[in-house]
């Protein structure tokens, strides 16, 4: 495999993981809760592309809509589901000021609930769906061929990151979110509505999950009711090695993990490839050994959001 092709693949997977880590990091920033259900939001977005059926072959539903409409519909659905989980699973607990372990367990319950609903409606057999089929074509520049889908993934990620930075720096709601991430009580004392800030964080995390659904299915074409789990794990690990609570760190951490995973897959000797994830997560433990505060946080003083 050509070096440039390999790098594009690596950066593409890194981009997916970065978006997942960003979605998890946004919620963690304001709520100090790791949302284990984030991966299942991705699954919901992917399954919304096909007609709900227990049959082995699911005809495309939203997946057959024109591109822009497809993106808007999936984003709307996943964002609404994310907001619903906040409203019905997390807000009542937050109001009672439960400890963070209870919130964490609640997010596990939401995760399994979403998975079980998908399992019930679509059965556990993997299904296939093809969206943006033209993206699987190769882009050829000077003898180097890379799939369009990777280029698009990287571009979409850059656009979303730029949009996020603009929101957090230029929009009052974004600045309020950064304030709440730094000192939630003080933000409330200045009139910032806790429910609103957290709902916005969940909305953003839902929209980011929707983007990952679409990008990931464009790449693989496969639906599975547990497809979000490895993505979410990659996202958690990304946020942890990036430095818990730093959005920039989360993005870089997710990116690093995706790149490392692709490179290991390509460069390991054939016999060792099945051990890729063992090596990768072993490496993560090693990284945390050396830098428990995360790779991209300067002495724990890094920007949280």
């Amino acid at each position: 495999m050509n070096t440039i092709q390999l790098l594009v693949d690596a950066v593409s997977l890194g981009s997916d993981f970065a978006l997942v880590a960003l979605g998890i990091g946004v919620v963690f920033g304001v709520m100090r809760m790791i949302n284990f259900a984030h991966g299942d939001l991705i699954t919901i977005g992917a399954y919304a592309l096909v007609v709900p059926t227990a049959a082995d072959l699911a005809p495309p539903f939203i997946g057959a809509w024109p591109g822009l409409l497809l993106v808007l519909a999936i984003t709307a659905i996943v964002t609404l589901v994310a907001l619903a989980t906040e409203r019905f699973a997390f807000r009542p607990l937050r109001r009672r000021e439960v400890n963070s372990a209870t919130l964490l367990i609640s997010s596990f319950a939401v995760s399994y609930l979403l998975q079980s609903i998908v399992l019930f409606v679509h059965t556990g057999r993997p299904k296939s769906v093809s969206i943006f089929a033209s993206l699987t074509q190769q882009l050829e520049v000077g003898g180097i061929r890379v799939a369009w889908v990777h280029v698009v993934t990287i571009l979409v990620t850059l656009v979303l990151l730029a949009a996020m930075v603009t929101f957090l720096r230029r929009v009052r709601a974004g600045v309020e979110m950064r304030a709440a991430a730094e000192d939630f009580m003080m933000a409330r004392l200045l009139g910032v509505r806790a429910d609103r800030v957290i709902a916005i964080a969940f909305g953003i995390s839902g929209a980011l999950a929707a983007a990952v659904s679409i990008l990931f299915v464009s790449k693989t074409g496969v639906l599975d009711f547990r497809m979000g789990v490895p993505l979410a794990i990659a996202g958690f690990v990304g946020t942890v090695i990036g430095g818990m609570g730093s959005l920039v760190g989360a993005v870089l951490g997710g990116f690093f993990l995706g790149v490392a995973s692709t490179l290991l897959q390509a460069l390991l000797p054939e016999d060792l490839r099945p051990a890729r994830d063992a090596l990768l997560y072993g490496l993560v433990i090693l990284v945390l050994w050396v830098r428990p505060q995360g790779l991209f946080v300067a002495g724990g003083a890094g920007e949280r959001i």
Partner: protein
Amino acid sequence: MLLEGDRLEIRYGSVPAVRDLSFVVEQGEIVCFVGPNGAGKSTTMMTIAGVLRPTSGDIRFEDRSLVGLTAEDIAAKGISLVPEGRHIFGRLSVRENLLVASGLRGGLGRGAPALDRILTLFPVLRARFESAAGNLSGGEQQQLAIARALLTTPRLLIVDEPSLGLAPKFVELVMETLKSVRLAGTALLLVEQSMRRAIALADRIYLMRSGRVVAEGPAKDFEARTDLEHVYFGGTARR
């Protein structure tokens, strides 16, 4: 009556931090809560602002109960607390700190005259408008904390230990500012450890110890009673 506390009891877990506490703040008045560490002053302020909840008793602001309201509801009603330790957003710029506080009044754009007035009051904030608030000195941070609270245009401004950790020149500035705030019609509720400063600033004083009010009255009454400081602070009179 602007603010009234009625037989408040506040607990931390099972330990009562404040017991049978009643107080009033009238329109445009400066009231000081004085007492040693652990007397329950900060706890009381946090309860008024809605961060903590009383286990019994009532707090009324303009004759409506505040008990059960969230901190942001209470801020919207016109009570602004500068908590102990300032709690500025260190990673945000001075401008962004003020932007967060401007939300209740429709943002910095709509609140431009108010912002201008406040920046005139604290010129150093104008000079360091785009700096990270965490890089300000302690005195500048205290000014930012008060400026931020004022930007919500409160009818009652509560400041917990306005002079704590400040250099003397800043203490003077902060005290002068607080007096000017009162002149603009805002009532002030202050927490002080120093009886001398409280007497200089306040109209009325509540002296607290171990979660109770042990003496109250007009500030000038306390002037003649410097004995109180020794009585209630156990010999280690402060400044």
